[in-house]
């Protein structure tokens, strides 16, 4: 590729488009005339709404990325998979027990995992998806919660699973069970809430409420910043 080249050729769902070089897949698709109603959210790589699969010339491997965070390349074949059908279990978290039985009750299909590792290979967050399904399968809710913590629920794992598992739903159930029933309560938080309730900070807050905008700005700019 020459430095002068200003555009690249991409194929969106098989249709060829010339798009500017150096932009994200999302920008390129908009340039090519696509308008996003779904499959686009934060545009900053966090919300997981714009899962995209693509292949590059000369490589049979299926690649994935978030459309808002992946650059276009010449000859790329791509399509978005912003949603993949998934049944979401409905439960009352308070009433659940943080046990293997609960995981199996809502998602018995986790025991169908074949260990093919395609979910881990495809995860745009580079999470150990297969491993967190393995820990779920053996009832280690804490490990599942930790290993799936950075999941953005894009659903690409579910699109690749030969056992038809919806991994991200299993992950969020584990994180909820962990957060509600397993993680130790934060002692300092409870103490601070008690202090607030007891009115320890009322005077300070009243003082802030009385301040002018300029005073507040000055205070804000002079605040301690944690490194």
């Amino acid at each position, binding site marked *: 590729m020459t430095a002068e080249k200003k555009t690249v050729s991409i194929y969106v769902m098989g249709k060829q488009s010339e798009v500017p070089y150096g932009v994200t897949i999302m920008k390129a698709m908009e340039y090519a005339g696509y308008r996003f109603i779904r499959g686009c959210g934060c545009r900053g790589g966090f919300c997981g709404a714009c899962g995209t699969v693509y292949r590059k010339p000369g490589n049979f491997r299926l690649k994935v990325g978030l459309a808002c965070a992946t650059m276009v390349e010449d000859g790329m074949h791509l399509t978005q998979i912003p949603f993949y059908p998934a049944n979401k279990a409905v439960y009352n978290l308070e009433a659940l027990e943080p046990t*293997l039985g609960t995981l199996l009750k809502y998602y018995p299909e986790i025991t169908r995992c*074949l*260990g*093919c*590792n395609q979910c881990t290979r495809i995860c745009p967050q580079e999470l150990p998806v297969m491993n967190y399904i*393995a820990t779920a*399968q*053996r009832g280690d809710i804490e490990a599942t919660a930790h290993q799936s913590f950075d999941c953005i629920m894009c659903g690409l794992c579910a699109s690749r699973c030969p056992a038809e598992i919806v991994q991200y739903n299993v992950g969020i159930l584990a994180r909820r069970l962990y957060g509600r029933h397993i993680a130790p309560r934060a002692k300092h938080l409870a103490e601070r809430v008690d202090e607030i309730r007891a009115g320890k900070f009322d005077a300070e807050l009243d003082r802030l409420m009385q301040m002018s905008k300029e005073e507040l700005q000055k205070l804000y700019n002079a605040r301690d910043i944690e490194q």
Partner: protein
Amino acid sequence: MSIPYFPGCTLHVKAKDLDDSTRAALAALGLELTELPEWTCCGAVFPLAQDNYMGMVAAARILANAAKLGDGRLVTVCSFCYHVLKRVNFAFRNRTEARNKLNEYLEEHYNGEVTLLHPLELIRDDVGFDVLQDRVYRRLKGLKVACYYGCTLSRPAEEMGFGEPENPTIMEELVAALGAEPVGFSWKTKCCGSYQVLNNAALAADRAQAVLEAASRQGAHVIITSCPLCRYNLERLPVGAAGKGESEARLPVLYFTQLLGIALQLPATTLGLDSHYLDALKEARA
């Protein structure tokens, strides 16, 4: 000395007592186990279709990860895990096509270098049953034990290498070393019904009942096994489910590692043993 260990899914919660008693009993014999840092389900069953390599990938990865640790050995106690890992390892060593295909899916190249060991083999080869005999604190004299291998440990014989396909004897050798008496038990490698408990519970209940009755006829006080599913089927199914009412052949079913732990005088809590088992055993020998 610390040996790589693959517990298997069921041992994390449902058969925690098998995991606990295995670690405790082996530790008491100077054999420390270290759980693999990361592992998945082994697949539980070996795929019998020639062209099903997908069913072997998970076990292949477990073996490849164990190989990375450099010890050259991997210990697993669950009968299903042992069966699958052993056969997949056999395929790596003996079937070129399987080795090539599976390596396509692995992150690390693997050639079957790892030696898979059941704790029974480990005790026999690294401790020795004759040495064990001298280290047993509480001789289980008078206790009649039915050694139940189930269907997965010894078949197919050429792949499993666990003795005769229908008459392995390694568990009896252990029992004898503990001072107990292994009974002649022709049902020792018959199947308990296995996963048919999900598909046809009556079938599994019928088989489990038959196994219990056969052990009882031989005057056994206790059945030992290394399979959590055998234990589940034997303990839970026969009453009622078989339509035969309360079984007269109600025998306690223990993991062999629990019996070993009792003989080594390990505390019941480290063996995951309820006191009612200990009472039952005491009564049996009285």
